[in-house]
């Protein structure tokens, strides 16, 4: 092991979608760690800077001061805020053997370990989205995940996270104490409802981390010109969805308003009539459903999690 890898440092990588609060959660975690006398960093890495786009956030925690500003490629802990990223992003890339994978999912840790091939790792699961919907009334799973993190790793205490939450929200929600209450409840439920299982395989991981074959500068088109049309079809942005529009052809009056407003051309037409949704490219923005005439209601938004269960 290299000298660098032997430092007494905990490195954490969050996988989420822009808008799910991973950056905020990483910031809260760093603040809580600082309050407990640790040295901490928190930083995000954005791609297209668009709600729903995959993003990462990072934490470093240590009892000693540290100074590096590089990205984290070999984390000790991976937290997956959106379970649908498990299928599209290699979340365990570089994760140390026997490291933690903490996932927001309704699956048990044993099921998750099998379903996503996580046997070399310790796996914790908590249905943070369900907790968030019940307590915060919206799918912001970051708060319950922080509670789960505190329980599983013991790196910060629930009490510190609780007092930090109050401190952070009390000014803004002075008139609405129920918001602060809901956040505390979400934190506590995450702490109490998380369950985990130990790693099942202890051999070092031999597989190379997944590498996308990027072209060198000599092979790329000068000036970044994309010389072909329709290349966006190559990117399956459908995994960005939290909610899915479900189409009922019986109710559709063929006004084509959905087709008109869809920013991703994901409404499929045949002979000028709507026949369905291109789920490979629909990002779940919900505009089609909003535009669908209330009397028709041929497009309804359904949580993606509902389809995972089936």
């Amino acid at each position, binding site marked *: 092991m290299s000298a660098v890898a032997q430092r007494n440092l905990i490195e954490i990588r969050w996988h989420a979608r822009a808008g799910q609060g991973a950056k905020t959660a990483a910031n809260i975690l760093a603040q809580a760690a600082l309050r407990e006398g640790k040295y901490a960093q928190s930083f995000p890495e954005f791609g297209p800077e668009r709600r729903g786009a995959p993003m990462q956030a990072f934490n470093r925690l240590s009892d000693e001061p540290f100074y590096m500003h590089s990205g984290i490629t070999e984390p000790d802990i991976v937290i997956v805020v959106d379970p649908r990223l498990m299928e599209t992003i290699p979340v365990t890339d570089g994760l140390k053997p026997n490291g933690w994978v903490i996932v927001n999912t309704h699956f048990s840790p044993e099921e998750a370990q099998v379903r996503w091939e996580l046997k070399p790792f310790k796996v914790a699961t908590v249905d943070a989205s369900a907790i968030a919907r019940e307590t915060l009334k919206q799918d912001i799973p970051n708060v319950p995940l922080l509670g789960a993190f505190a329980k599983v790793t013991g790196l910060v205490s629930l009490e510190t996270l609780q007092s930090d939450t109050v401190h952070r929200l009390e000014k803004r929600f002075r008139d609405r104490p129920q918001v602060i209450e809901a956040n505390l409840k979400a934190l506590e439920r995450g702490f109490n409802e998380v369950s985990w299982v130990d790693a099942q395989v202890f051999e070092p991981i031999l597989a190379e981390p997944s590498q996308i074959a990027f072209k060198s500068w000599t092979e790329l088109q*000068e000036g*970044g010109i994309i010389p*072909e*049309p329709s*290349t966006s079809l190559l990117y399956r942005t459908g995994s960005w969805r939290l909610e899915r529009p479900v189409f009922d052809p019986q109710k559709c009056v063929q006004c084509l308003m959905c087709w008109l407003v869809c920013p991703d051309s994901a409404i499929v037409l045949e002979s000028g009539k709507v026949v369905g949704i291109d789920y490979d490219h629909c990002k779940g923005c919900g505009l089609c459903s909003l535009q669908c005439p209330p009397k028709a209601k041929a497009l309804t938004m359904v949580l993606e999690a509902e389809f995972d269960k089936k």
Partner: protein
Amino acid sequence: MVEVEKLPPKVNEEQKRLVALSGNEAQAEAMRQINPDVVAAYPITPQTEIVMQFAQFVADGKVDTEYVPVESEHSAMSACIGAAAAGARAMTATSAQGLALMWELLYIASGMRLPIVMAVVARALSANLNIHCDHSDVMGARDSGWIQIFAEDPQEAYDSLIQAVVIAERARLPVMVITDGFIISHAVHPVTVYPDEAVREFIGEYKPEFSLLNVQHPITMGPVDLPDYYMEHKRQQTEAMKRAKEIILQVGEEFANFFGTKVYRLMELESMEDAEVALVSLGSSCGTVREAVRALRSQGIKVGAIKLRVFRPFPRDEIVKVLAGVKVIGVLDRADSFSTMGGPMFTEIKAALYDILVTQKQTAVTSFIPLGGPKVVNYIYGLGGRDLRIEQVEVLFHELLEIAAGKQVEQIWRYIGVRE
């Protein structure tokens, strides 16, 4: 360089016209002959005459150009970028604040690899308000990825602007041709002008590889370029700059063969074969320096001069080869960098010499340059249009000779022609 068999030039002397033109008129004439698809420009002193005359050519139907009268230089360069992306041959001209206002677009033009050609009439930047010549505007754009060619006089401005069209399209990089404000832009000199057809034949028809307006083949230009690709595209740009040196030399040769002119290169040398000391300069001052060299040489004093024609890409290897044998070099900068270590050309030349000394393993330590070799001093002159006189240059040469003879120098860079 390979010796090529000398053929008589395509354009003979009878076909040429010798006329009296100012720098601006010469460049407007070149633009008329180039007949670009699009010109978008905004007037600013001392560049105004170029676009004013060109607008007249458009109004009189002497060119086929789509002229876009814009509301600022920011828009002028934006329109040129759009036109060039669409596959048009696009040109503009500006000065000083106008160039400064183009700043972000300069990087977009070069980053998108668009062969835009721009006449820059160099002028001091405000504050304080000054309309006269110095190089602070062009030096501010030196790292924007544009090829920078300095013209000494109206003839060179005319010739270089025509060459710039070919250089830009071959290198797929934008080019600025720089003349000194008022000193050249408004000074009338004899200029040899070539026939319209000959100029059009030399530059040829522009056949862009991509056009944004080709609806049969839709493409994307200027997409978002995140950490996973941006650096590769910058790497391509720097390679294009390296290649541009060869292209500039090639086009210079072709131009000479076609029009029967002198061969334009990266720099021009004056009595450098056995020079003990030398001055390096840009633009109109090069003529003044040359006169001083000739006067001193007539007295048997071994001085020389380098006129740097191409500042970007910087001809490092070429200039070092010439300067390595010189005892003391004076660099004339018509701009201050405010780095407190001299003007922009001074630091470039010093950096170039440092590298070559390391590779030659010269390790003799002096208090002047750690690795020995030629001493380099810097004179900042001519800011805001202050004159540089031939007598001053003569004094500088004598100072360089004294340094060569062992005189200690207190300041390796200083202002000259300033009231202390």
